[in-house]
């Protein structure tokens, strides 16, 4: 990957974002049992659905990598194709998550229901918001590259974006494991 002051600075931002998620994970861990008489994780979470979300996001991280490889090789069309695939997967992930959230909320199991659900919606919702922001950023980048071409500046931006996108999949590993898999077991 491109190593310059900008990408190191962006990497440092990513590390600070880790701390944000760390506190959200810690909050969830403390509150996951606080169901206030309402449903628990085991009753609410649909594991096959979550597995689908997980594989979609993971694949999008892979296609993002392929896009950056194409970019480094100067293959602009190939890069745009892989970025397009990443965007489709990312937006699909968001759509699935939104459907999951609306289903819960419409049954009365929104973030207002209990400490467990508050912390769940905050943690997973914050991750989802990051994915949405990353998707929007991707659209902007794709538009820019289509116009200006693969300049050094665009490469730095693409690198920063890819760090963000890969990082979100790393966080999701934590969510998949500590929220959904643990939830199914407790």
């Amino acid at each position, binding site marked *: 990957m491109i190593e310059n002051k900008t990408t190191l600075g962006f*990497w440092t931002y990513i590390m600070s974002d*880790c*701390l944000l998620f760390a506190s959200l994970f810690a*909050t969830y861990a403390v509150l996951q049992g606080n169901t206030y008489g309402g449903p628990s994780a085991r009753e609410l979470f649909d594991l096959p659905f979550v597995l689908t979300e997980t594989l979609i996001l993971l694949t999008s991280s892979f296609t993002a990598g392929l896009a950056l490889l194409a970019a*480094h090789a100067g293959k602009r069309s190939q890069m745009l194709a892989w970025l397009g695939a990443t965007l489709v997967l990312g937006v699909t992930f968001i759509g699935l998550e939104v459907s999951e959230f609306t289903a819960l909320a419409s049954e009365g199991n929104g973030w207002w229901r209990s400490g467990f659900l508050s912390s769940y919606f905050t943690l997973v919702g914050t991750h989802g918001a990051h994915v949405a922001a990353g998707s929007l950023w991707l659209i902007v980048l794709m538009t820019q590259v289509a116009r200006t071409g693969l300049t050094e500046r665009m490469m730095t931006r693409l690198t920063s974006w890819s760090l963000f996108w890969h990082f979100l999949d790393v966080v999701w*590993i*934590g969510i*998949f494991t500590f929220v959904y898999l643990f939830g199914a077991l407790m």
Partner: protein
Amino acid sequence: MNISLRSYIIGFVTSIALTLGAYALVVSDALARAETLTVIVVLALLQIAVQLVCFLHLGAETDRWRGATFGFAALMTAIVIGGSLWIMSNLNERMMQMTPSEVEHYMADQS
């Protein structure tokens, strides 16, 4: 196939395997709960490491700053999560163990 492409493919395939492995373990009920929890945590940490190296190319840089900032952030994360759990568990032990309705009755009695 160049080195980087191989890196992404290895990362992708390994991550899928670790994800499906953890999922299958939970769904199949093969082990006792404590063992299952331990194993899926290990699988998660492995997958995080795999993605850090294969996707985020941690450790591949010429200078040491990315690794250093990651190490520091990892330490801070461990302290925030571990410390919070320790403190909250401690506080929980020291609290009167009441159910929500008992809490409501207690609060109503205060007035």
